[in-house]
């Protein structure tokens, strides 16, 4: 069973054991519009909470995706290389970006649950 959390920067994090799967929310992809390219981190790279992790490019502009937690990249979604539009069609499923080995589970505490995130985007 996984737990899903959300950040202020419109990322979702699905937690299973010590692995967090990270993507951008459906709300975020709606704001970005048609995604044409995703620049993913290298497997094995270390990321820091709040630091650059990936870049998502729409027709119009490039947007940074920040790491929601500290950790090590253990897998990236290779399907996005050939079909970046998965971010639009299935942002919170097949459009995931990366899997991060969680370095500090305590950082998960400050993240929003679904109800809090829905309230956040309604503001």
């Amino acid at each position, binding site marked *: 069973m996984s737990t899903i959390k959300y950040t202020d920067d419109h990322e979702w994090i699905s937690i299973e054991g010590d692995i967090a799967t990270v993507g951008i929310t459906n709300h975020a992809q709606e704001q970005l*519009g*048609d995604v*044409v*390219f995703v*620049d993913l981190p290298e497997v094995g790279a270390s990321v820091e909470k709040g630091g650059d992790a990936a*870049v998502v*490019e*729409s*027709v*119009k*502009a*490039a947007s940074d995706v920040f790491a929601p937690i500290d950790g090590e990249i253990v897998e990236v979604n290779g399907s996005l*290389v050939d079909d*970046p539009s998965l971010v639009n069609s299935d942002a919170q499923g097949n459009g995931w970006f990366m899997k991060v080995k969680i370095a500090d589970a305590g950082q998960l505490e400050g993240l929003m649950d679904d109800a809090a995130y829905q309230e956040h985007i309604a503001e």
Partner: protein
Amino acid sequence: MSEDAELKQTPLYSRHVALGAKMVPFTGYDMPVQYPAGIMAEHNHTRSAAGLFDVSHMGQCYLHGPDHATTAAALETLTPGDFLGLEPGQQSYTQFTNETGGILDDLMVTRPAGEGSDGSLFLVVNAACKEADFARLEAGMPSNVSVEILHDKALLALQGPAAHDVMSRLGPEAAAMSFMQTKSCTIAGLACHASRSGYTGEDGFEISVSNDDAGTLMDTLLEQPEVEPIGLGARDSLRLEAGLCLYGHDIDETTSPAEAGLVWSIGKRRRVEGGFPGAERIQKELGGGRTRFRVGIIPEGRAPAREGTIIEKDGVEIGVVTSGGFGPTVGGPVAMGYVAFEHRAADTPIDLIVRGKALPATITKMPFAPHRYRR
């Protein structure tokens, strides 16, 4: 202080909102960047059918003088275009240049046809530059040439391969024009001034209409089965694929028309005679003195190279990207920028420095998507 409070609206603002457009500040106006269909769908619709653009933020004015020769000669003191040779009913692309040969704005100039229009020229200038352009014209025209700024006119663009069929139904007189012709005519029963031109690389029309009639014209055009509303996002990707310059990005006060590859817009007589601001530099550049040149660029792979991306060749910086993004019709990233003149040839391999990594790319001829004007 809220910036939104100061934003101006075009006469079509409430229609954009009603259509569900995402509105953004652009050159002081609250403008539709996209409608619910999205930039990609809007771009593709314009290439396959017809798109309707609200470009009422652009500046429109008339110059009025005693006769064509006087008005044309007056405008020629500010631009390198040949307006003495412009036939009635014809349109021409030109630039305002500064004393050092840079570009202050680019604009379209029309010589109206018909009775009572001798001595008049109609100008359409960029929104961001219009106040400065109007001031420059008012300061630069002789006492017998007046500037009439059209605050009461909207501007709509209908672009795409189906634009002709739509216009054949609503304004047959306009549909009879060929590329770069203009006409005062009736469209959907409304008095308009139309030109056969645009900013997408497609066949199409730009229609100047009174603010009062603009909404009715927009509604009638959107009732046509081929026509969808298109926002500024797709306008940018369409013009980029067409290899057309965006002022403030691909051309500015430092770039000359010769460096920008706009020599075709400088009259032959003007190249020889000069007599426009910055003629010395531009004539020198045309005689072999150019140090850089605007080129098209196709990045390999899928990563777009945005404005400001450094261009290298063999590890040495040779230029910079001035417009770049994804070309939906091309199906991949496209860009334009300036490179050192000796590296301008098509098929030259280069590197684009994107987020610290060198991405291979190739200099290429423009347009990226073929122009489909009706000549």
